[in-house]
């Protein structure tokens, strides 16, 4: 039986799988229990109350020591907006291995990193501050011969297990993307944003789009979890989700839990992915996104997702915080001068899935909702 404590501060049992999804912050975060109190952290966002990285806040709250319990840190994107606080997570996790998209190895990436370093004093940062801090940490650790080298994520690449690291669940974590074509597309885009002496300085725009996002397939004793990153569906089948579907043609490796890509939007949705990569009534989770009048997932998106699975959850409804200012003249002026104004991120929550490793893979997950997390069916019902 899964834990029935229904308390946020009760950690998983030593034979219990857990996938926790936190968000939204600027980005989202996933904590994956590797067994025996060891964890993998995928991406990062800040906890709404403590303003600490969500993963560090959570692990501390369940009595785990983040410094020693985090074994793997993965960045599915490298733009700051998608991984707020990830450098702090990695710096804290002194024995962890870092993995991210292969774009960081490109010469063009160095050009971008070099140029944007000088803009870090802009309000909101340069856009590469998190990754730069991680590179500095990796540089520091490179002097220690016992440190495991960081890994470049790419299709077919196994990120876990790693020799010498604990693996009581016999868990495997495999990259399903980015594909080789996506890597080539990345290099081309990096050239587009690469600095030149005649270009105006600004905060780095997000140049990699979402077809270079890392997607992970996790497997332990027949239980499978698909972590969809922010990957899009592209017309070109060599890119995005359809490249993954084609790579898995003829392989029955459908997943029992699915962190939906791109906040449940249609751009990350494919009927082929649902039918070939996920079991029926898979447990689907997503985090919301709010910018201006854009709200993801929309009610229509939720209805589309619910048509695939009724076991669908949102870490929070896609609602921004209402703008307020203690000075009414400021509040009035702000309202008058803008089309829309809001505090972001807005509502924040945490969806936790647990299941004993020894249960049959098709057994339903124990689902716990914290903060503003809500089942998608309830959200649609109350919004409609």
């Amino acid at each position: 039986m899964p834990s029935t404590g229904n308390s946020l501060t009760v950690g998983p049992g030593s034979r219990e799988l857990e996938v926790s999804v936190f968000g939204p912050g600027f980005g989202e975060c996933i904590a994956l229990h590797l067994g025996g109190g060891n964890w993998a952290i995928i991406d990062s966002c800040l906890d709404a109350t403590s303003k600490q990285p969500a993963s560090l806040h959570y692990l501390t709250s369940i009595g785990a020591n983040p410094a020693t319990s985090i074994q793997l840190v993965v960045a599915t994107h490298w733009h700051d907006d998608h991984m707020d606080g990830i450098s702090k997570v990695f710096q804290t996790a002194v024995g962890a291995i870092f993995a991210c998209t292969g774009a960081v190895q490109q010469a063009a990436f160095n050009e971008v990193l070099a140029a944007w370093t000088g803009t870090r004093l802009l309000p909101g940062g340069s856009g590469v501050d998190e990754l730069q801090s991680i590179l500095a940490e990796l540089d520091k650790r490179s002097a220690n011969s016992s440190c495991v080298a960081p890994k470049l994520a790419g299709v077919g690449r196994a990120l876990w297990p790693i020799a010498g690291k604990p693996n009581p669940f016999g868990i495997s974590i495999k990259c399903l993307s980015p594909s080789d074509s996506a890597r080539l597309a990345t290099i081309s885009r990096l050239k587009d944003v690469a600095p030149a002496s005649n270009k105006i300085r600004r905060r780095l725009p997000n140049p990699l789009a979402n077809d270079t996002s890392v997607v992970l397939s996790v497997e332990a004793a027949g239980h499978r979890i698909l972590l969809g990153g922010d990957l899009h569906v592209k017309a070109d089948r060599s890119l995005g989700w359809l490249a993954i579907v084609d790579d898995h043609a003829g392989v029955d490796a459908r997943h029992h839990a699915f962190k939906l890509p791109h906040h449940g939007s249609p751009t990350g949705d494919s009927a082929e992915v649902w039918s070939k990569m996920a079991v029926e009534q898979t447990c689907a989770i997503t985090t919301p996104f709010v910018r201006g009048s854009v709200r993801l997932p929309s009610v229509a998106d939720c209805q589309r997702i619910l048509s695939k699975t009724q076991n669908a959850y949102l870490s929070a409804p896609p609602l921004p915080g209402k703008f307020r200012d203690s000075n009414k003249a400021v509040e009035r002026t702000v309202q008058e001068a803008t089309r829309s104004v809001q505090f972001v991120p807005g509502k924040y929550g945490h969806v936790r899935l647990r299941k004993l490793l020894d249960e049959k893979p098709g057994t339903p997950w124990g689902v716990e909702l914290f903060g503003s997390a809500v089942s998608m069916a309830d959200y649609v019902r109350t919004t409609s």
Partner: protein
Amino acid sequence: MTESPSTLSVSLKWSAKDEQKDELLTSGFFHLQEEEARVVLRSPVEKGESVREGGAVVTSLPAPSLGEKSSAPAKGSSVLQTRVLRSQANQRYILLKKYEGFVTARGEDSFSARLFENNSDYPVVEAEFDLEELSETDRELAIEGAPLVWTIGYAYEGSTRKRESLIYLRRLPAWSDKELEKGRAAANDLTRAIHWE
């Protein structure tokens, strides 16, 4: 009866050295008492400093009495350009709010921006503006990542008070070849020892 002191509204562009010795150029919009403004406008240029038009070095920090403390040029900063925007007796300005931030998205007739009062703000303000809120010259600069400033305040002219909202893009200079070369070397130093698998 006490006469109100004269005020000047001044646009400054200045450069300073940040902690890693890189030159940082930035600009700001100040409402200063006349005496304070003179300090900026008439201070001597440091020995060895190349003199540019409107050039001066801030040797005495003007008292940022109207809420501009966080953006005032630090002592020793080189003021590259000054522009007096308003200069009349009986004018004053009370700053109610100042946001700095960057453009997050550009549409056909609007743009969105993320705005901060302090760098540590969380959550932050995100707003969507009509492009018309910007001056014609600023509109083409409103692209993703462009830094902007938004001030809200009361402007007084004699006995008249006016609520003002002023949005403008910060004009950061283009990268120089020298700066790019230096950055490249720093990035290579940072990544050389890292062996990815």
